[in-house]
């Protein structure tokens, strides 16, 4: 059964969130392909972007996984990266959006 992650997002950016999540789903495919090819630099770049933007959108978990994957790419640790990308895929599959008030979300996580 898919685990659910309810995330409250800032109303000011709610319209941007579906595309942000769709792009992260595309990142999962990109990262898996890069991992299969041993392209750690492409993987690091994708992870770096994720680390920078996840928290701002209200998804600190995405930033956290991005940071871990960036470090994994630097270490060329394929096993750790495979586990992390699986966790990202599971998170994206289970995330549920709730629109918040628009003032709060600092996005740091």
């Amino acid at each position, binding site marked *: 059964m898919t685990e659910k992650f309810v995330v409250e997002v800032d109303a000011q950016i709610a319209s941007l969130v579906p*595309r942000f999540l769709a*792009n992260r789903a595309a990142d999962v495919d990109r990262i898996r392909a890069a991992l299969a090819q041993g392209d750690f630099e492409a993987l690091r770049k994708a992870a*770096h*972007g994720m*680390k*920078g*933007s*996840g928290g701002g959108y209200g998804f600190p978990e995405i*930033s956290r996984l991005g940071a871990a994957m960036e470090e994994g790419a630097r270490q060329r640790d394929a096993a750790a990266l495979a586990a992390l990308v699986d966790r990202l895929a599971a998170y994206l599959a289970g995330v549920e959006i709730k629109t918040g008030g628009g003032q709060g979300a600092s*996005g740091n996580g």
Partner: protein
Amino acid sequence: MRIALLEDEQDQADLVCAWLKAAGHSCHAYMLGRDLVREAQRETFDLFLLDWEVPGMSGAEVLVWIRANIAEPVPVLFVTARQREEDIVHALSSGADDYMVKPLGKLELLARIDALARRTRPNLNQPEESIDFGRLRVDCRNRQVWLGGEEVAMTQKDYELALFLLRNVGRLLSRGYILEAVWGQSADINTRTVDTHISRIRGKLQLTPENGWRLLAVYQHGYRLERVEAAAR
């Protein structure tokens, strides 16, 4: 404020621009350093938000260019995922005014932008009842302009443009910047409109060297209102 953002991640650029617009700023996003530099040669910005790692010309190189080529002290806020102390020191010693590490917090980002604006142009947003500029007096409460004791008949837009120019004496202002500041970001108006209104204001307010003013048209850029020293008259 009119803010130029250098950010190669589209999602991050969209996010920051959404925050800035909701806070009343205008946001012009560039994915490449050289595009921002090209635009900054003919446009006016109140603040630069620079990401460090972008393809080609990096944020750090853009910062060096800004400090070498833009005469006025426009604040630069570095925004990057780099968090090593030496990176922060390098950015600040290269001329950045502040530094933020991603992931960004909306409220912190907006607060830092406001703080930089207060430091750079402390009087910009202070409410004033009236402002004196030599023979010119602007009555902000009643939205009137007086020249040597005589009220000058002005349209709403002429008044706003006059006040905007007078509050930015000495600054080189691009047509796009003036247009956004006076007519708004969504205004479907040609920049020639700015030229028409500028010409009218120059005449109505007698912004000529004999009266202590010079309203310069700067080729391919915009306008600059300058004070003319008494000795030069």
